[in-house]
């Protein structure tokens, strides 16, 4: 067949030829009549005419141009007409229109919202200039990544040649008082190049300079934009003003722009780091970032790091010993966002599946609609509308629906983004950077267009497939009916096949959440209140004064009514260990790698206050903090079992921190287990050592009743004693446990809600299909009943028809889930990725719910009155 434009071109061509020929012939006739021979007349006529060929071309050209513009105007008019008719006919079925717009709109909007979070977390670069050249440098002792010490950093500074700039930072909570109120500020103590590594310039004032970082210079600070606005009055004269932090004076030299990135957000002040030459290699509190030169070879930089570390190692041999440790670097973004692939993939897949189900559902509803409109469409075809034209009309309708859904989706995505910014931080990094950007707009556009095609094309092709003649003769031609039903069954089956893995994933997440809740915390979480206090360093330099403060605070809090005991520590369960420390057991060979476990400094009352039990030996007491007594520690049962599985740990000796010249540390007792590294982590074994000095401590209070009402009076006691040292991060122990469950909880809730929507849509789908089946087969069912078939047989027929589809879908879905859930095993706790109980119970649940949905049309079929139906036919 020739394409239609070819046909039109030919007709233009022949029209022009015919017209010009007629002219010539009439002229020839005229000339011949005046006496010329026909040949002469022809010659003369052509001469008089002028350039015949050029005219032919010109005329054809004009005609074709006219044709084309008319075609265009026509099709635009047609489109306008289709739109008008489409809107009118959709408004005639408001329930269907609303259902499709709502479900697909929610699908698109939710998918776009989750995409915005994934985009902010993973896809978008860090908001720093040339952020691809930023790296994090650390000490690598798999599985741990340790920060640097001052000694490390100074050696690195001196010897490195491969990095353009580098900086170190460490966090410090400092107390700030402006005379009336005392509050704890979050500050970051940074070396002078910190902001130039990130490529951020101060908004006001100046950046740190090299001389600021020299020991003995005036202590200077940069204010964050928020701190500048809220505490410094937002006026430029704040520059140069002194602020009192921990009792010492710092001068504000500049104000930073509003923070955008994860390295500087959420800090009030940035203080200059002044290094004093270290006397030992630790402690390791200094994070290092560096900027590579443009086009630098990363492997050369990495090699240099290893070389410096190897050279540095022997110098500090006496105080730190772990040959396995190397210096390493990795991309800063990778380092900051951590491994969020599993969680992003899961959330995105879950929400996209909901969208797909919504489209399948819409497709299903629209098939039913065009099927009932077959006659109308056949009339259009009979009146001369081509198949393409009818399909286009139907696609315009679905385009309208998709446009409505997209509009709703924008609102939903916007709301979802607000929610994710507020609550998403428990499972997504960088939620502060979520915004509506171009990528998001493209994703929504793509989703809307694919929605229109997904739920529009299948019904359109299906509706226009049959012959016009046949459709006109019978609205319920049996062959068309079967085809449509098949198609709808396939769609519903697909819905169940998609919903099943979603529900299984949700089920697995809920089971692991439950398992997490069942974990034995090892201590009585009721009736325990915790908080932390940091003494201002400048006023509390004398150890005796620090000790006196803690003693007095303990006495006063213990005297409060309702308090049964008070203790201090530098860490609290379930996920705040004071520190991780390496140690060499007396029994182990010197070249063996040293184990690393949490080390928690505690006051003597700790074990009793938290409700731990002594299993063996004795507890730490006042004697152990006296000077010149042997170092004693208490370990927990997990530690004792890990290192001394077959004997008593009491009396065993070790050297902590890898220090080879230090005195022995002796285990004097074993207590029950508590987790410090997170509820979902195995207990590695904890060492408790006596707490002395330390301007920072956790205060742990056991109450006789509900601990919450105690908080204000405890806070009051701290303020009485030292106004510059506020009590912060006050929580009950139960709160601490709940907080650590926040991430699995919110994730499982998110996925579970998606799964429920998916289930609901699938149920609507099967209900619709079976309702249609019954309606279509009223006659057959009635005949069956009239011929003596029982109502039970009818019910069996309808339920059987529906459940075949459902069960096929559920089986397919279960197999999909079996292949897919292992990808999320890192998010599970205490349950296997292919847990048979979860799989079978979800499958059973789906079948039962579907059974309920199928029962309604079956019930309707059973109550048909055969005589009435057959009379109407």
């Amino acid at each position: 067949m020739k394409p239609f434009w070819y046909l039109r071109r030919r007709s233009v061509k022949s029209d022009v030829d015919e017209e010009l020929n007629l002219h010539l012939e009439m002229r020839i006739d005229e000339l011949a009549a005046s006496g010329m021979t026909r040949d002469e007349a022809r010659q003369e006529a052509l001469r008089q005419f002028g350039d015949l060929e050029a005219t032919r071309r010109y005329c054809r050209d004009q005609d074709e141009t006219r044709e084309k513009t008319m075609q265009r105007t026509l099709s635009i008019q047609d489109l306008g007409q289709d739109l008008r008719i489409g809107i009118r006919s959709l408004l005639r079925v408001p329930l269907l229109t609303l259902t499709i717009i709502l479900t697909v709109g929610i699908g698109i909007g939710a998918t776009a919202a989750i995409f915005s979070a994934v985009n902010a977390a993973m896809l978008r670069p860090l908001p720093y200039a040339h952020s691809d050249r930023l790296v994090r440098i650390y000490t690598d002792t798999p599985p741990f990544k340790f920060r640097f010490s001052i000694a490390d950093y100074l050696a690195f500074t001196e010897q490195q040649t491969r990095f353009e700039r580098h900086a170190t930072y460490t966090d410090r909570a400092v107390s700030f008082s402006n005379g009336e109120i005392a509050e704890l500020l979050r500050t970051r103590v940074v070396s002078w190049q910190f902001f130039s590594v990130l490529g951020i310039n101060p908004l006001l004032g100046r950046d740190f300079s090299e001389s600021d970082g020299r020991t003995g210079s005036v202590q200077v600070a940069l204010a964050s934009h928020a701190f500048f606005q809220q505490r410094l009055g937002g006026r430029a004269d704040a520059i140069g003003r002194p602020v009192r932090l921990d009792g010492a004076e710092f001068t504000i030299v500049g104000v930073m722009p509003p923070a955008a990135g994860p390295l500087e957000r959420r800090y009030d002040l940035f203080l200059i780091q002044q290094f004093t030459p270290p006397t030992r290699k630790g402690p390791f509190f200094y994070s290092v970032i560096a900027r590579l030169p443009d086009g630098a070879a990363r492997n050369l930089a990495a090699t240099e790091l290893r070389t410096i570390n190897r050279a540095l190692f022997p110098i500090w041999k006496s105080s730190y010993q772990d040959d396995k440790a190397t210096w390493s670097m990795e991309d800063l973004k990778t380092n900051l966002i951590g491994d969020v692939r599993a969680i992003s993939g899961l959330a995105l897949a879950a929400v996209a599946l909901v969208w797909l189900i919504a489209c399948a559902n819409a497709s299903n509803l629209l098939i039913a609609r065009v099927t009932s409109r077959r006659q109308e469409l056949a009339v259009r075809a009979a009146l001369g509308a081509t198949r393409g034209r009818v399909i286009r009309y139907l696609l315009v309708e679905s385009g309208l629906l998709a446009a409505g859904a997209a509009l709703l989706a924008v609102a939903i995505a916007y709301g979802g983004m607000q929610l994710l910014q507020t609550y998403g931080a428990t499972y997504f990094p960088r939620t502060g950077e979520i915004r509506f950007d171009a990528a998001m707009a493209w994703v929504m556009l793509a989703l809307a267009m694919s929605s229109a095609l997904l739920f529009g094309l299948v019904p359109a092709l299906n509706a226009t497939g049959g012959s016009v003649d046949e459709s006109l003769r019978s609205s319920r031609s049996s062959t068309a009916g079967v085809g449509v039903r098949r198609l709808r069954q396939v769609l519903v089956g697909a819905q169940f096949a998609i919903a099943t893995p979603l529900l299984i994933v949700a089920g697995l997440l809920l089971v692991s959440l439950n398992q997490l809740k069942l974990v034995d915390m090892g201590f009585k979480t009721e009736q325990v209140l915790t908080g932390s206090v940091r003494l201002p360093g400048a006023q509390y330099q004398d150890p005796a004064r620090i000790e006196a403060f803690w003693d007095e605070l303990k006495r006063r809090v213990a005297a409060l009514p309702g308090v049964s005991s008070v203790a201090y520590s530098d860490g609290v369960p379930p996920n705040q260990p004071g520190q991780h420390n390496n140690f060499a057991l007396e029994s182990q060979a010197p070249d063996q790698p040293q184990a690393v476990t949490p080390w928690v400094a505690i006051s003597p009352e700790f074990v009793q206050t938290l409700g731990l039990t002594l299993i063996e030996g004795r507890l730490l007491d006042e004697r152990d903090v006296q000077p010149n007594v042997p170092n004693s520690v208490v370990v927990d049962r997990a530690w004792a079992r890990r290192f001394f599985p077959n004997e008593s740990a009491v009396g065993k000796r070790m050297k902590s921190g890898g220090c080879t010249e230090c005195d022995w540390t002796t285990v004097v007792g074993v207590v029950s287990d508590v987790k410090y590294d997170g509820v979902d982590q195995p207990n590695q074994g904890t060492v408790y050592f006596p707490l002395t000095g330390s301007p920072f401590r956790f205060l742990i209070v056991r109450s006789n009743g509900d601990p919450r009402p105690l908080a204000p009076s405890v806070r009051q006691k701290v303020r009485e004693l030292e106004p510059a040292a506020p009590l912060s991060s006050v929580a009950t122990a139960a709160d601490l446990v709940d907080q650590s469950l926040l991430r699995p909880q919110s994730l499982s809730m998110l996925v579970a809600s998606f799964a429920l929507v998916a289930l609901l849509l699938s149920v609507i789908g099967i209900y619709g299909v079976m309702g249609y089946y019954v309606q279509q087969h009223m006659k057959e069912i009635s005949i069956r009943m009239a011929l003596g078939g029982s109502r039970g047989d009818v019910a069996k027929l309808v339920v059987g028809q529906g459940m075949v589809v459902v069960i096929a879908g559920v089986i397919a879905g279960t197999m999909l889930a079996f292949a897919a859930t292992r990808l999320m095993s890192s998010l599970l706790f205490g349950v296997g990725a292919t847990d048979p109980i979860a799989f079978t119970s979800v499958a059973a649940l789906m079948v039962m719910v579907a059974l309920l949905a199928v029962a309604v049309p079956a019930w309707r079929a059973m109550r048909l009155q055969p005589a009435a139906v057959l009379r109407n036919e």
Partner: protein
Amino acid sequence: MPKNPLPLLQGTLDLLVLRCLSGGARHGYAIASIVREQTGGDLTVEDAALYQALHRLHRQHLVDAEWGPSENNRRARFYTLTPAGRTRLREETANWRRYARAVDAVLQGA
């Protein structure tokens, strides 16, 4: 009949064609004959230019075209003015008159 017929001024052919159609539907040959008769041979209008003008006016939607039987029953293409064509004819006629008057005034004044 003068010896040297005048060449047509640019742009006036469209006006002449529109004018010829103001009396009703005509095919190309008829228009050519009318132009020839009414100018008494003072203006040369090439048939080629005439047909090009007809198709151009058709593209501009100033005239409509329809196939119909000619006087001796052959299939001919008949042209009629569209409302837009009628308006254009009025405007162009007025313009032409102003133009001719202006040129004439200068010629007489000099």
